[in-house]
């Protein structure tokens, strides 16, 4: 979906940087090769973007203007949590939920188009004060968890599996809001998704809370 948007808008001075928050060896490769992106497709094994921008889940995106200024801090990029209401056996989605999912995506893409065309005059470009309000709240436990995750990744890369996994579990315990950390430490199913029963238990435990944070954008479900 990003490739089409990039092709549509690149002549207007727009670029996508897609970053895979994948840490398992070889994981994102086949996906990137299949998507054949012509924009930079990068790999962030240590989740540096989580430290720098407060990313806690994917897809989350940040809008950055020509001067390198944050226009919209990290937020879900057109994602809607309709998957919580799908049939977990057949993976079928109720029709109204599928409609909301499509609406979230279309609303988000249209907002990007509007911003690319109108810059700071776009209704979706946040003012300085608004953008600050949307920044993630600082938590020292989170900063520590991110350091632990990074250490865990280094140790895994060195083949020190037991200790590496221990640091990642500890990071997830300290920073439970991060689905990126949790899913990286979780098992994956036959399709490579971290969607085993423990994932669904964790999702169900959210109750009324969101899996994808609410996006402050008119028309967004």
């Amino acid at each position: 979906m990003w490739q089409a948007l990039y092709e549509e808008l690149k002549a207007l001075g727009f670029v996508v940087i897609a970053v895979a928050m994948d840490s398992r060896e070889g994981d994102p490769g086949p996906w990137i090769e299949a998507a054949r992106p012509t924009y930079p497709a990068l790999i962030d094994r240590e989740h540096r973007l989580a430290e720098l921008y407060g990313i806690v889940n994917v897809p989350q995106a940040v809008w950055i203007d020509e001067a390198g200024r944050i226009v919209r801090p990290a937020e879900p990029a057109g994602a809607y949590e309709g998957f919580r209401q799908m049939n977990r056996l057949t993976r079928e989605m109720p029709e109204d939920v599928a409609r909301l999912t499509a609406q979230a995506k279309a609303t988000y893409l249209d907002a990007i188009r509007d911003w690319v065309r109108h810059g700071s005059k776009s209704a979706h470009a946040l003012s300085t004060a608004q953008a600050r309000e949307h920044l993630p709240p600082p938590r020292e436990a989170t900063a520590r968890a991110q350091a632990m995750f990074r250490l865990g990744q280094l140790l895994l890369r060195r083949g020190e599996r037991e200790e590496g996994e221990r640091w990642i579990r500890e990071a997830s315990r300290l920073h439970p809001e991060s689905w990126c950390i949790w899913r990286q430490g979780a098992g994956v199913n036959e399709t490579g998704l971290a969607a085993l029963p423990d994932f669904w238990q964790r999702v169900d435990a959210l109750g009324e809370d969101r899996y994808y944070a609410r996006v402050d954008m008119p028309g967004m479900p």
Partner: protein
Amino acid sequence: MITLLTDAGEFAVPGAEASTTTLWCPARDAEAATGWVAKPKGLCRGPVCVPLPAGREREFTDGGRIDLAALWRHLDRPAVHSDRGDAWVLAESARERAAMLAALEAPDFALPDLAGRLHRLSEQRGKKVLLVTWASW
């Protein structure tokens, strides 16, 4: 061999010595990895200098080396290390990151593509950037 992970990247520091509470690093390596240097008025990074507690200067620097673990404790920033003390992450604190983000200047980063080539956000200056994350899981 001790590996340091900092905001500036990953550094192998053969001359470093660590216990579970100390991380003595040759001054040159400490500067490359963290930007911090010892000066008469304290430990400094760019224009910022942090005075050291009177009488305890030797806990932080011994002339040719800096104890980065002691410095990080003094700065109240997160430092974590492997059980063997051979890998350390010296991170920024949440309040410092928040202060940087409040300026709304997008923090620069360098990340590799599939071929291993590094790309920086700052290379896209002059364009509007959608920085979007995803994962295969």
